[in-house]
């Protein structure tokens, strides 16, 4: 009775099994592919070959959906391998932890953003709004973000809401994080359309590693 059926592809961390499963599902009459079993402990290094083992054996004309890849770098790996749809609880976990995404979405060169090293759990990806450094910060989470939260509220207010355990904190964070994350996907689409996705991925991953290296040096 109506509705599309997606075929599931499993195989753990075994390249051969992944390949075999993909090949078998590919000959079935399904409307798309659901790739399961990722984001469960495989390393960043081994993931691309596992993903390719799947996608290389799937027809190009049907959508591929994956579950369990949430971090921006993981998403980029999925996109590089030819995945179209992503489902994860990444945003949920960020929000529950009081984090807000801040990584630059702008693909042009940007100057270094000076993050306070005293932030707990803050890096160039995200900030932890529970940190006391934000108590009096009357600026929005991301300066030119056009989400409801950034257009209407300050880090100081959200910091206060988190401190007093008010529900509005999660609502505002979820709005921003969802908006920001969807903006990331828009950047990916644009990069693909302009034929420079590989470059986009390299630059993105590199800028995050640089920041971490800088932290190590200055400590």
């Amino acid at each position, binding site marked *: 009775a109506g509705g599309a059926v997606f075929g599931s592809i499993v195989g753990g961390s075994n390249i051969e099994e992944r390949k075999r499963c993909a090949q078998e599902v590919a000959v079935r009459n399904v409307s798309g592919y659901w790739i399961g079993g990722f984001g469960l402990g495989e390393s960043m290094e081994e993931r691309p070959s596992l993903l390719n083992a799947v996608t290389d054996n799937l027809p190009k004309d049907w959508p591929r959906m994956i579950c369990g890849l949430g971090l921006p770098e993981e998403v980029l790996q999925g996109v590089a391998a030819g995945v179209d749809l992503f489902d994860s609880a990444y945003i949920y976990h960020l929000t529950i932890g009081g984090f807000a995404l801040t990584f630059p979405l702008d693909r042009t060169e940007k100057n270094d953003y000076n993050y306070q090293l005293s932030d707990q759990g803050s890096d160039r990806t995200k900030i932890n709004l529970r940190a006391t450094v934000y108590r009096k910060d009357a600026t929005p989470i991301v300066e030119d973000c056009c989400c409801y939260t950034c257009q209407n*509220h*300050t880090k*100081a207010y959200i910091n*206060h809401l988190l401190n007093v355990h008010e529900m*509005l904190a999660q609502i505002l964070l979820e709005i921003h994080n969802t908006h920001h994350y969807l903006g990331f996907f828009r950047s990916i689409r644009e990069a693909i359309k302009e034929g420079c996705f590989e470059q986009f991925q390299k630059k993105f991953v590199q800028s995050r590693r640089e920041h971490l290296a800088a932290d190590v040096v200055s400590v």
Partner: protein
Amino acid sequence: MALRFEVLGRFNRARAAQLTLPHFACQTPLFMPVGTQGTIKGLTTDQLEEIGCQIILGNTYHLALRPTSELIDELGGLHKFMNWPRALLTDSGGFQMVSLLHLADITEKGVTFQSPVDGKPMLLTPEESIQIQNRIGADIIMALDDVVRTTITGPRIEEAMYRTLRWVDRCIAAHKRPHEQNLFGIVQGGLDPVLRDICVRGLVDRNLPGYAIGGLAGGEDKDSFWRVVAQCTAALPEDKPRYVMGVGYPLDIVVCSALGADMYDCVYPTRTARFGTALVPEGVLKLKHNAMVNDTRPIDPTCACMVCKNYTRAYIHCLVTKDAMGSQLLSYHNLYYMLQLSRNLHSSIVEGRFPECYIIPDSNLCASRNSNVVRFLWQFPKGDVPEWVCNAMDVAGIDISSCCSS
């Protein structure tokens, strides 16, 4: 004085007015949602504007603890801090005296609490309360009063009433922003008409911008409750707003408005939402109940709010038992319900049809003129309207005999 109060219509003692405050021109009778810690639980300021909220209440005690009034002041006041462009009212912190009495020591100086955050003693004097409220920056601020539970009897009530008057003078002296913030005095005196009278006259002598009727909504019987409200509204000046603190249930608001009160606040609509209870014309609807599992109707088919337009009882039933969104949706609806009640009170008084729309359940007048009328006496389909309501409406000069079976 930083307000204007203009009566636009009357029905006997009931009045509909425009209360113009520095941040917003409000229409009374009005209900103020309680945003204790600088937020109405789970609702954005956009949503509050959407449902027609005019003024929100913030609590001095809680805000002074976190994030502190100094921080709020530094960031430009509570309006700016929470991004609420309309009106705000802060209470004095005095009510916590009653709620936390076992931790409080009340003297002529002020009230000592034990801070719930770090156990340190906190002294709240009238001067300190006003200073905190000056920093927070609300349109209306409340004098620190010596609040006593109405269930207490004896000389303590008289002591508290006279102290309230002495403290109001200290509040007036400490108030640094009288042209931007309106200091309301609070009538105390328990359930004793003599004490209440002395307090009213004392406060009126001080010529304050507005007056509150305090010390009620604390467990006293309804018969005593309405009599105190009736006495105070009769004695307070006509040309100034009257605020019944801590009220309340829709029925109570309608009765108090009939008796001549203008402003109300209560945690009830939002608190009951968090327990899965929705406000409806017939009374309440418990969304957690199993009967809701398959009910595809909206909470209230006559309600025009976003929740009733978009969600079914069945869906909300699922949420209330599992997810914060359930409380959020119910809070939205319940506040819309209370604010719509306020709007209906205002317009029905202005248009001279106050009694009909509230009293006659089957009136075609109601159906055609106002599809969202709160037919509050529909809560009593068997005609078993409580005696206190009948007595109060009698004094208010409103005939509800058609709704009573007795």
